[in-house]
C-alpha cells in the first residue's frame, strides 16, 4: 500500500511530536500558516517507496475542546472547517502518559480519519514504572502502534513503513456526535455535560489501559525533581532566575556585537562600491542613502534579535521557562498578568512583534491583552542604538558617577524605567477591569531535557523573519520617503537657501559643505515639517532637527539614528561622525551645547516609553481584532513619554 498525500501529526504538547517530525522531514521542512489562519505549522516532505508525501506538524493540544484561539484553529483544520481535512493522521502518543494522551485519541478517533500511532518516550515510561504492550494496544485501537524514540533511535525506516499502513481507528467507548458538539461548544463557549463526558471517556480509557499495560513500582527520585529543588526553591529560585536573565542579556550584547559590525562594514562596502561604480548624482545618492541606508537599518538588528530568541528558545526547550512561569505567577497575577506572560515579556527586549504573537499561549483574554499592552514597554533592540547614540553624544566614555560607569548607568536606567512603568501600567489596567477574572494557571512541568539545537535555531529564525517582514517593509519605505523629503523642498525656499549658502560660505570657506547642506535641509520639506513640529517639542529641549527624527521614527525607533545621520550629512552611518557634529551644535538661547546631557536624558526617556513602532501597532491590531487598543496605547504611552521627557529635561537642567 502506498502512503497518502497529506499526513497531519497530532498529539499532546511535549510528547516528542516535533522531534519525530524533524527526523522524518529533515531539511525539506518550511514553516507556513495553516491555510486562512495565522497559526504557524511546519510542513515538510518525506519520500516513501519513491513517492513524496507531505507532512504537517500541528501544534500540540490536550483536547479537541480547546481553550485558546490558536488551539481552536488547529482543531478547525483537523476537522476540515473551511477546507479539506488531512487525508491521514499520525498520532503521537507519549507512552509515559498514556491515559491523558488517550483522551485526545478517543476524541480524534471519532473524526473517522485513517491513522497510525507512534509511541514515544518509552524510556521515561519505564522509569515511571509503566510497561505497554504495543501489540495489545494496536488491537484495542485498531491501528498499527509502533514504539519509536525519535531522539535516540538511528533507523527511521520503521516509521516510514508505518506510514504505508493506515487504518480506521476504533472508538474507545461510545460515539458522541463530536462535530455538532464541537460547534455548539465554540458558539456558546461552553457545553453542558462536557465534564461528565470527559470523565466517562476516562473510565473507558482506564479499561484499555488495564488491558494493555503493566505497572511496577518505582521511587520518586528523578533528575527533574532534583533540579526543581533549586530552580523552584522558595528564594533560590528567584536568585537563579535573576542570574539567568543577567547572563542572557550579557550574552546577547557580547555575542551580537561582532556580527553587527560585520553587517555595518558590509553595507559600508556596498555603499562605497555603488558610489564608485555609478555616476555621482541624485539617483546614486538615493540608492546609497535612501534605499541601502534603510535596508541596513533593518538588517543590523537581526543578530541581536536572533541571539536573544535563540537563548530564550534554549531555556524554553530545556524546560526551564515553565518553571520561570511557575515561580513568577504570583507576582504576575497581582498585576493582572499570568505566569505565562514572562516569556513574551522577556522576548519584548528583543522585538515586540514576535512577542505579541507569543502571547497566544495565554488562555485568559484579559491577561493576554494586558500582556500585549506591556510588552512594548520592554526596551527592544531598536531602542538600544538610540540610547547608545545619545549617551555617547552627551557623556564622555570615561566618565564615572560614583562607582558607576556613566554611559552604562544611563542605559541600564532606561531599561529599568521601561520595566517599572510596565508594572505600574499593568496595575492600572487591572484596576479598570471590572468583572471577576477568568484567570487560570494549569501548566504541565515537563521533564528537563537537553535542548534540541536544530529546533531552537529554526524557531529563533522564524522570529527574525517575522521582524524582517513586519518591520522591514515599514522601515525601508520610511527611509526612502525621508530621503525625498530632505532632498526636495518648496522651489522658492530651496533657491533662497542656495544663494544664502554661496554668500555665507564665502565668509567661512572651510565649512562650505556643511553650511550649504544645513541651509538646504532647513529649506526642504523635512525642514518645514520639523519647524512646524518645533513648538510642540521645544519644552522637552528638542530643536527642529530632532523634530524631524522624532516624526520619522514614529514608523520605527531606530530610524532616529539614520535620520540624524542623514540630517547631519554624515555619509557613513558612523556614530563618531554624527557624534562630533552633534556635539558642535550650540543652543542660541542658552549658549550651552544644544545636545547636552539634559537633551539626551530627555530623549532617552521619550524613546523608552513612546509607542513609536507602526509594525507593533499593526501586529497588535491583527491579534486583538480592532484598532482601539493600539491607538489608545499610542496616546497613553505618548503622554507618559511627553510628561516624562519634560520632567527629565527640566530636572536635569536644574540639577546640572
Amino acid at each position, binding site marked *: 500500500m502506498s502512503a497518502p498525500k497529506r499526513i497531519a501529526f497530532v498529539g499532546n504538547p511535549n510528547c516528542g511530536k516535533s522531534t519525530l517530525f524533524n527526523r522524518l522531514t529533515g531539511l525539506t521542512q518550511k514553516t507556513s500558516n495553516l491555510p486562512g489562519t495565522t497559526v504557524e505549522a511546519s510542513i515538510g516532505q518525506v519520500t516513501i517507496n519513491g513517492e513524496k508525501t507531505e507532512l504537517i506538524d500541528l501544534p500540540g493540544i490536550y483536547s479537541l475542546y480547546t481553550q485558546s484561539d490558536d488551539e481552536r484553529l488547529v482543531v478547525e483544520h483537523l476537522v476540515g472547517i473551511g477546507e479539506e481535512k488531512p487525508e491521514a493522521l499520525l498520532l503521537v502518543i507519549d507512552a509515559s502518559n498514556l491515559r*491523558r494522551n488517550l483522551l485526545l485519541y478517543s476524541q480524534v478517533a471519532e473524526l473517522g480519519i485513517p491513522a497510525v500511532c507512534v509511541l514515544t518516550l518509552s524510556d521515561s515510561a519505564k522509569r515511571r514504572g509503566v510497561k505497554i504492550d504495543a501489540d495489545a494496544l494496536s488491537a484495542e485501537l485498531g491501528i498499527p502502534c509502533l514504539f519509536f524514540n525519535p531522539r535516540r533511535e538511528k533507523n527511521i525506516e520503521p516509521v516510514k513503513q508505518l506510514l504505508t499502513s493506515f487504518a480506521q481507528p476504533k472508538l474507545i467507548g461510545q460515539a458522541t456526535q463530536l462535530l455538532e458538539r464541537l460547534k455548539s461548544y465554540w458558539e456558546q463557549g461552553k457545553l453542558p455535560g462536557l465534564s461528565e463526558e*470527559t470523565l466517562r471517556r476516562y473510565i473507558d480509557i482506564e479499561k484499555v489501559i488495564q488491558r494493555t499495560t503493566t505497572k511496577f513500582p518505582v521511587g520518586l527520585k528523578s533528575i527533574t525533581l532534583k533540579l526543581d529543588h533549586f530552580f523552584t526553591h522558595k528564594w533560590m529560585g528567584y536568585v537563579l532566575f535573576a542570574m539567568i536573565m543577567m547572563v542572557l542579556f550579557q550574552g546577547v550584547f557580547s555575542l551580537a556585537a561582532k556580527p553587527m559590525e560585520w553587517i555595518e562594514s558590509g553595507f559600508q562596502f556596498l555603499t562605497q562600491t555603488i558610489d564608485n561604480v555609478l555616476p555621482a548624482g541624485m539617483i546614486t545618492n538615493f540608492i546609497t542613502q535612501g534605499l541601502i541606508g534603510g535596508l541596513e537599518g533593518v538588517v543590523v538588528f537581526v543578530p541581536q534579535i536572533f541571539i536573544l530568541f535563540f537563548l530564550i528558545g534554549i531555556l524554553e526547550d530545556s524546560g526551564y521557562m515553565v518553571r520561570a512561569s511557575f515561580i513568577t505567577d504570583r507576582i504576575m497575577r497581582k498585576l493582572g498578568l499570568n505566569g505565562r506572560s514572562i516569556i513574551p515579556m522577556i522576548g519584548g527586549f528583543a522585538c515586540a512583534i514576535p512577542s505579541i504573537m507569543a502571547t497566544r499561549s495565554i488562555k485568559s483574554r484579559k491577561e493576554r491583552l494586558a500582556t500585549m499592552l506591556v510588552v512594548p514597554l520592554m526596551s527592544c533592540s531598536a531602542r538600544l542604538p538610540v540610547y547608545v547614540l545619545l549617551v555617547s553624544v552627551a557623556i564622555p566614555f570615561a566618565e564615572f558617577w560614583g562607582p558607576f560607569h556613566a554611559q552604562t548607568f544611563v542605559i541600564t536606567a532606561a531599561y529599568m524605567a521601561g520595566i517599572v512603568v510596565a508594572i505600574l501600567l499593568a496595575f492600572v489596567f487591572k484596576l479598570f477591569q471590572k468583572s471577576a477574572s*477568568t484567570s487560570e494557571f494549569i501548566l504541565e512541568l515537563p521533564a528537563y531535557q537537553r535542548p534540541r539545537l536544530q529546533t531552537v535555531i529554526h524557531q529563533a529564525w522564524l522570529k527574525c523573519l517575522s521582524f524582517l517582514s513586519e518591520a522591514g517593509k515599514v522601515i525601508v519605505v520610511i527611509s526612502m520617503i525621508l530621503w525625498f523629503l530632505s532632498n526636495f523642498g518648496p522651489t522658492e525656499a530651496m533657491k533662497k537657501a542656495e544663494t544664502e549658502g554661496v554668500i555665507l560660505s564665502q565668509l567661512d570657506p572651510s565649512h562650505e559643505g556643511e553650511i550649504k547642506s544645513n541651509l538646504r535641509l532647513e529649506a526642504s520639506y523635512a525642514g518645514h515639517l520639523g519647524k512646524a513640529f518645533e513648538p510642540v517639542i521645544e519644552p522637552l529641549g528638542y530643536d527642529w532637527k530632532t523634530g524631524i527624527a522624532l516624526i520619522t521614527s514614529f514608523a520605527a525607533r531606530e530610524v532616529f539614528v539614520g535620520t540624524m545621520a542623514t540630517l547631519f550629512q554624515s555619509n557613513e552611518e558612523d556614530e563618531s561622525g554624527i557624534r562630533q557634529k552633534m556635539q558642535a551644535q550650540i543652543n542660541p538661547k542658552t549658549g550651552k551645547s544644544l545636545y547636552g546631557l539634559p537633551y539626551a536624558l530627555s530623549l532617552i526617556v521619550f524613546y523608552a516609553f513612546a509607542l513609536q513602532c507602526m509594525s507593533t501597532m499593526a501586529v497588535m491590531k491583527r491579534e486583538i481584532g480592532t484598532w482601539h487598543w493600539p491607538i489608545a496605547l499610542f496616546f497613553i504611552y505618548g503622554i507618559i513619554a511627553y510628561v516624562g521627557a519634560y520632567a527629565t529635561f527640566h530636572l536635569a537642567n536644574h540639577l546640572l
Partner: protein
Amino acid sequence: MEATADLLKEGEKAKIAGLKEGQFSLKLAEMGCVPGTEIIRLYESGGGSTIAYRIDTYLLGLRKEEASLIQVEPIEEAIA
C-alpha cells in the same frame, strides 16, 4: 471538612476522589486529574500560591484555587 489537593502536605500522597464544579474542572480532567489517579504534592512557590503536584506519572503546576477543586481521599495501603 472535605479534603482537597491544596490541603495536602508537602510530599503527602493521596488518591483523586473527584472534581468539584468549577470553571476549570474540565481543563483539570483533560490534564489527567481524574478519579482514582494518584496525586502527590511536591513543591510550591510564591508562598503557596502555585503548587506543583505529581499526578500519576507527570508534574503539573497549579494555582491554589485550582488545586482546591481536586477532591482527594487517603490511599488504602494494602497490609503486607
